């Protein structure tokens, strides 16, 4: 049989934010590539919908709120006790609220930072402790080009995603001794529920301006899932600490 470095057979992957959008697309693709999945999200019904779209069997649902930062490490330990060691972890969970600086307040900042950023650190903490170190592990965070560029009214979200990129660099070095690679993807606008909410939060002219900045149009969730699967797989076994833009030429524009 031809060696396929994108084969995930026998690998167990935790995916946060699996109930919709990019997380759902990652779940579908990784199941098609043979992975056994632990699907996380807040909404059980939506997670079940994702589950119904998966290939193969042995997948499990694991709802948990990413805002519960202090509970996340123990939650991951419980998962490994119940379902066995995890080989990889994809962090898609995230929230985005458009708020100019005049609307800034601590609660909004804390929510965004906890769900988007602190959760990544806390889950990595649990993931590192409970695993088979003889096998290379891999982590992929879903960041955003908002962490690389400036967007009016999207500063805190951008800061959380830039934080994820920084976390990628720091953890990729700190987890070398644990045989874990850490990379991230930075998508531009992708057709998801989050994009619909973004559209609703601005005028048609403002949204059209955003569309005009995408030379190849907006992305599909699967475009991001392909990049995530590559970075997560053995095909990328010598790729570490990379923030991979997945943006249809947005940054070249």
């Amino acid at each position, binding site marked *: 049989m031809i060696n396929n470095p994108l084969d995930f057979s026998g690998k167990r992957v935790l995916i946060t934010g699996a109930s919709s959008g990019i997380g759902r697309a990652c779940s579908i693709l990784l199941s098609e590539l043979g992975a056994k999945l632990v699907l996380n999200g807040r909404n059980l019904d939506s997670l079940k919908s994702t589950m119904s779209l998966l290939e193969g069997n042995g997948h499990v649902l694991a709802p948990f709120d990413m805002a519960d930062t202090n509970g996340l490490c123990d939650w991951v330990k419980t998962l490994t006790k119940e379902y066995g060691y995890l080989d990889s972890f994809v962090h898609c969970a995230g929230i985005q*609220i*458009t*708020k*100019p600086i*005049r*609307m800034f307040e601590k609660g909004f900042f804390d929510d965004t930072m906890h769900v988007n950023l602190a959760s990544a650190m806390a889950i990595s903490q649990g993931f590192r402790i409970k695993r088979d170190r003889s096998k290379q592990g891999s982590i992929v965070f879903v960041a955003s080009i908002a962490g690389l560029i400036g967007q*009016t*009214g999207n500063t805190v979200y951008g800061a959380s995603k830039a934080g994820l990129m920084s976390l990628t660099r720091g953890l990729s070095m700190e987890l070398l001794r644990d045989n874990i690679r850490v990379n991230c993807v930075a998508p531009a606008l992708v057709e998801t529920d989050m994009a619909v909410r973004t*559209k*609703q*939060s*601005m*005028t*048609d002219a*403002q*949204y059209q301006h955003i569309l005009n900045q995408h030379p190849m149009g907006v992305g599909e969730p699967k475009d991001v899932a392909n990049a995530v699967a590559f970075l997560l797989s053995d095909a990328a076994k010598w790729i570490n600490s990379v923030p991979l833009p997945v943006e249809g030429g947005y940054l070249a524009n």
Partner: protein
Amino acid sequence: MNKQEFLNSLEEVLELDENTLKGDEILMKIEQWDSLAFLSVIAMADENFDIVIEGSQLEEIKSVADLVALVEEHLSA
């Protein structure tokens, strides 16, 4: 939140002095009304009233009274 409190929130968003809005102002004539004020009002409605004001809907809104009408059913007496 009652109507006066809503107007006060609007004043904060528009960075106006307290109790300067009467409710009949034309938004375009308020110096501070700009695209960021737009985004802020949308965020405020979502946060305080759980109302999603769609961008296209907001383009139809011309006055402070139009904004009040939009959230009216959620305001207390």
